[in-house]
């Protein structure tokens, strides 16, 4: 079976190349990558950890679609590439430096405990959102994040809803306040993130919920104005100017 891997090593070559290898292991793409690394080229770079779909470190793209390498079968001639919308450091390894700062801006943590009683139903409400493994697949698929690196993006917003909906949180407004700019109103609701998520999380719907909650809590409904400015999005990055960024 053949596997094609997009390679990049800036110490050797500024250009990316596509290399083809033949492998025996195809139970998972991670196994195939390990085989390539140990048999053909020790320098192949990729991240992995748990090999069971929970550590979120092995996200890649297979024929253009975001997948976890450890949970995906290899098909003949599959093209493996790094995930998008962040700097490629080497081969399939990308920079993750943005993660901490985006979560920080979003205030996606329990601000202060309400000490309320939590029921089974309360806990169910945040179950799916708290299954996020921070694998970055959704960011790779997001067309808004592609052009605006200040966009808080799908997993930060899903995490925001996880805490807004948490009855333990006594200050959900604090979180809602932090996701108005470069947040929920910038999303085009294209739903790519939902398709990309290996944990069946639905960031698009989460963003819609957050919009509703925001309006209910007196924040301005910016869906219309966001629609207008979305025409300029493609240019924002090039000019370093972001109309939604004040």
């Amino acid at each position, binding site marked *: 079976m053949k596997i094609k891997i997009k390679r990049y*090593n*800036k*110490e*050797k070559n500024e250009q990316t190349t596509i290399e083809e290898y033949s492998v025996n292991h195809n*139970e*998972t793409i991670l196994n195939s990558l390990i085989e390539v*690394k*140990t048999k053909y*080229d*020790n*320098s*192949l*770079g*990729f*991240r*992995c*950890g*748990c*090999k*069971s*779909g*929970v*550590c*979120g*470190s092995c996200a890649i793209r297979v024929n253009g679609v975001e997948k976890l390498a450890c*949970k995906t079968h290899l098909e003949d001639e599959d093209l493996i590439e790094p995930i998008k919308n962040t700097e490629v*450091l*080497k081969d399939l*390894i990308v920079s*993750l430096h943005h*993660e*901490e700062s985006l*979560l*920080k801006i979003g*205030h*996606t*943590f*329990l*601000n202060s*405990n309400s000490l309320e*009683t*939590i*029921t*089974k139903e*309360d*806990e169910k409400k*945040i*179950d799916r959102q*708290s*299954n*996020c*493994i*921070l694998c970055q697949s959704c960011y790779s698929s997001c067309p808004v994040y592609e052009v605006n690196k200040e966009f808080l993006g799908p997993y930060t917003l899903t*995490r925001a809803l996880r*805490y807004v909906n*948490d009855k*333990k*949180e006594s200050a959900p407004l604090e979180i809602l306040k932090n996701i108005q700019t470069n947040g929920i109103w910038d999303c085009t609701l294209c739903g790519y993130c939902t398709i990309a998520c290996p944990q069946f999380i639905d960031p698009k719907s989460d963003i819609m919920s957050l919009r509703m909650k925001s309006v209910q809590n007196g924040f301005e409904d910016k869906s219309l104005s966001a629609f207008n400015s979305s025409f300029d999005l493609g240019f924002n990055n090039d000019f370093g100017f972001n109309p939604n960024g004040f």
Partner: protein
Amino acid sequence: MIDVLVIGSGGAGLTAALKAKELGSKVLVVSKTYPTHSQTCQAQGGINAVLKEDQQDSVENYINDTYKASHKLGKIENIKFFCEKSKETITWLDSIGVPFSRDENANIAQRKFGGTKAKRTCYSSDYTGLKILHTLYDQSIKNSIDFLNEHILLELLVKDSKVNGAIFLNIENSKIIQIEAKSIILATGGYSGVYHQYTTNSYSSTGDGIAAAYRAGAKLSNMEFIQFHPTSLEGKNILISESARGEGGYLVDSKEQRFIDELRPRDEVARAIYKKQHQGDKIYLDLRHLGLEKIEAVMPQERKLVYDFMKLKMEKDLIPVSPSAHYTMGGILTTIDAKTTLENLYACGECAQSGIHGANRLGGNSLLEIVTFGKIAGENAAKNSKNKETVEVEKIRVQEIKKEIEEILKKECKTSFYSTKNELGKLFFNNVGLFREKKKMQKALDYLENKKEEIENLGVADKSKIHNKNLIELLEFKNIYLIAQLIVKSALKREESRGAHYRVDFENEKEAFDKISISIKKEENIEILFEEIV
């Protein structure tokens, strides 16, 4: 100057960092992975605690169960502290946002786990470790904890038995840096990675912190005790949690016959499976009689795992399983205050031998340990740093280490170590695994000794500076190689069977060995001793 340097960002490291920060320390967390990539995310089953004392359960029962599982190698005082604090520990996790599953009465739900009759294990669906780890990470962000991710610990800086800092390699650019600190906490996880390709653990569990502590002169303890989990997916080494058997699943052989009471302790079930497999049989987990509805209700995540990784359906197919190395009871010897035998050095989590698990660990006790002792380590490290202005560190070691790494990169790479790593994993699984005997272990030891020169002279094919995983894996493999020697030497000396350590040639537990084993560096040699539990 950093007050508290935390090495490792799993559940133990993040808890320690939060506690030290709360006490006003300047904290830095350095880790070879990103926090949420740490192995803690893999824990599914749950975390133990006695939340309410009634006819069902009591702290006393919990202490007894834990001590019994330890086969007299746990330390009563530590176990008592650990169990008595369990409610407080869970309450703290709950208060910072861990979404524990609730029961009908809006209490934290608890289920049964191995080694006890009581319902004592709290959980967050099948994702307990994931949700705890991510909540701790969120809190770390809230509290502005500083992180240096993807930096691998190479060596601790030690002078006159005092630890004053550590040397790391920045994986992103291969630069070597020295970080000085008043207190240092190791929270680097276990060493199941020695059993490469025969373990449920993350690829990062290579015992680096334990190896570094050993090289610095700290006492390690109980390195021979490794827990093998009976049911991991065959060939994949992915865990199928005990709950599958707890809910009524059977273990059957290729004739579809049951051969053991599935609810016996982990080590017994694992040995029964291994024995059958050794006779050429295949073993399966049979859940078909439970029916789709029940399976969907009680183990949806597991069902998904089996489907994703094996393309098998629990309600229709037999699931091939085999035992895998799962948890390492041994580690850096610590006191009830999380202190190691070196000044300024603390350890917590799976890398520590904190006197709780002894010869065997109860399911659900590890997550509780990482949080309980994570807090204690954070607290004591913070206190320790308070009465110091600064520390003095020499710069010689860091220069030497820079040279060593350069040498490795320069070396011509004649043999790749990946095949040796596979070989060693397999040899240890078979010869220093579930069934042990002198002859076989001696063979494993001879193998290690024969490889000495080869391993000392290993080079890497990848010469690049950016994310050189080849180099990182070589450094990890050298740690595996050291730890493997400690395991087999301790196991050879313990001429008895106890808990997870089962010797075919000494089948009984012996009073003379009611002691913990100690591994310590004497000049360049490994010394193994036994110490009373006091």
